[in-house]
């Protein structure tokens, strides 16, 4: 129910935005900003995928890895959580070339944001795994499952459901942080907006459209996560509401 109303909300917002834009002479900005939005979406998707992978790896290494892996995971989490995303971005973009590593701006953007959000995500994963009742581990031992099997088949699927809402938050954080990549020469939504603003000085129109576009993308993320939650919880919740 909530899911549907949110989806409708997103569509209404978006069409209303476009309608207003076309009436009030906003129209000329739309193609350029949509181009920027596409880049923003690309970076968001790439960053989210990397963040999930890194979070899972770091959390598993921190919880179950041998000592060196554990230290590595702790170092990764602390460094990327404890320093500014902007500085990380600059570091990968401006410092790495000094060591002979030259990366595409888009690669740097996805890497920096993905690693940054992945560090937060690692703690989300760890918290969710720890929240699975101990009895589930004990039942796995009683059925003679090796730990990796128990983790993969019993613990993580249950932890996954608890992880979805906080991951929704992190994905939206990541989306908003993509605005930083305009500072390393990428023409994302924020960059396009600034560029147009500097040439036309139509500040009100441009930044209103940009605001609505960010909002629309973040609502899409929320809708997607709710949907994911509803399918993931189907098995466990079945019958509970009866």
């Amino acid at each position, binding site marked *: 129910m909530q899911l549907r109303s949110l989806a409708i909300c997103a569509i209404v917002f978006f069409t209303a935005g476009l309608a207003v834009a076309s009436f009030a002479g906003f129209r000329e900005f739309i193609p350029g900003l949509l181009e920027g939005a596409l880049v923003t979406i690309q970076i968001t998707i790439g960053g989210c995928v990397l963040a999930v992978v890194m979070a899972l790896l770091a959390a598993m290494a921190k919880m179950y890895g041998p000592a060196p892996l554990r230290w590595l995971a702790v170092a990764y989490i602390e460094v990327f959580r404890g320093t500014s995303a902007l500085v990380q971005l600059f570091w990968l973009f401006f410092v790495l070339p000094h060591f002979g590593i030259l990366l595409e701006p888009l690669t740097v953007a996805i890497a920096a944001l993905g690693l940054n959000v992945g560090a937060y995500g690692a703690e989300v994963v760890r918290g969710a795994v720890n929240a699975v009742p101990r009895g589930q581990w*004990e039942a796995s*031992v009683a059925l003679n499952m090796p730990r990796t099997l128990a983790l993969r088949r019993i613990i993580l699927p249950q932890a996954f459901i608890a992880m979805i809402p906080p991951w929704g938050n992190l994905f939206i954080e990541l989306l908003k942080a993509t605005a930083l990549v305009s500072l390393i020469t990428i023409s994302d939504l924020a960059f396009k907006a600034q560029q147009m603003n500097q040439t036309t000085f139509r500040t009100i129109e441009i930044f209103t459209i940009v605001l609505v576009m960010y909002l629309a993308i973040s609502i899409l993320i929320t809708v997607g996560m709710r949907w994911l939650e509803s399918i993931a919880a189907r098995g466990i919740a079945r019958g509970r509401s*009866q």
Partner: protein
Amino acid sequence: MTTPMVKFDKVTKRYGSLTVLDSLDLEIAANEKVAIIGPSGSGKTTVLRMLMTLERINEGIIYVDGEPLTHMEKNGTLVPADQRHLRRVRGNIGMVFQHFNLFPHMSAIRNCMEAPVNVLGMPKAEARERAAELLDMVGLGDKVDQYPSQLSGGQQQRVAIARALAMRPKVMLFDEVTSALDPELVGEVLNVIRKLGSEHNLTMLMVTHQMGFAREFADRVCFFYGGKIAEEGAPDEIFSNPENERTRQFLSAVLEAN
């Protein structure tokens, strides 16, 4: 004398300065049904948990079917067991828990198939067939596709029993399996255990507060007190004619409560 199915050899368990089990010696023969009773904190659940390797032991050795459980022989001495040894010996044991601990994201039949398929490497079709048979045996043939949240406590516990049996253990441990159930659901679970006792060759070790059931079902009753077996014997002796003062106090307290 034949090898006991389970043997505790001077097993000690401590939590910090608290000694939960104090140099326990206990032998259980194949197919024997042993009930463990005693006041809370007497170490009775710890006995089962150590046998299931859910708790480390501090001293002593546990043997299962003649083999050390948490130790293995190497160059003539016993050293702590590696994972492979532990898993091989542990495969003889199954356990049913007070709070069922079913996997909530799997249907009843998947709960019973998961370990046979992924631990024993049984083909899926065979595991499904066997799981269906076991669920049928515990009276849940019509609930195979239900999820744990759709089942009553008694039904969940019966699924848990079927799940443990699917691994073909030689020893079954029952840890207060009716304590979390509403009174009217206790009977259906005890009936399943009765049936297991009469139809299967299983060694059973149960911690229970159901004195009536212990008396009728068990071959032997062990009364635990302060981390030791204070008294043990045939159910009729223990319940009608307890020798130990502690046993008498405990039994009269339990009977009064009922």
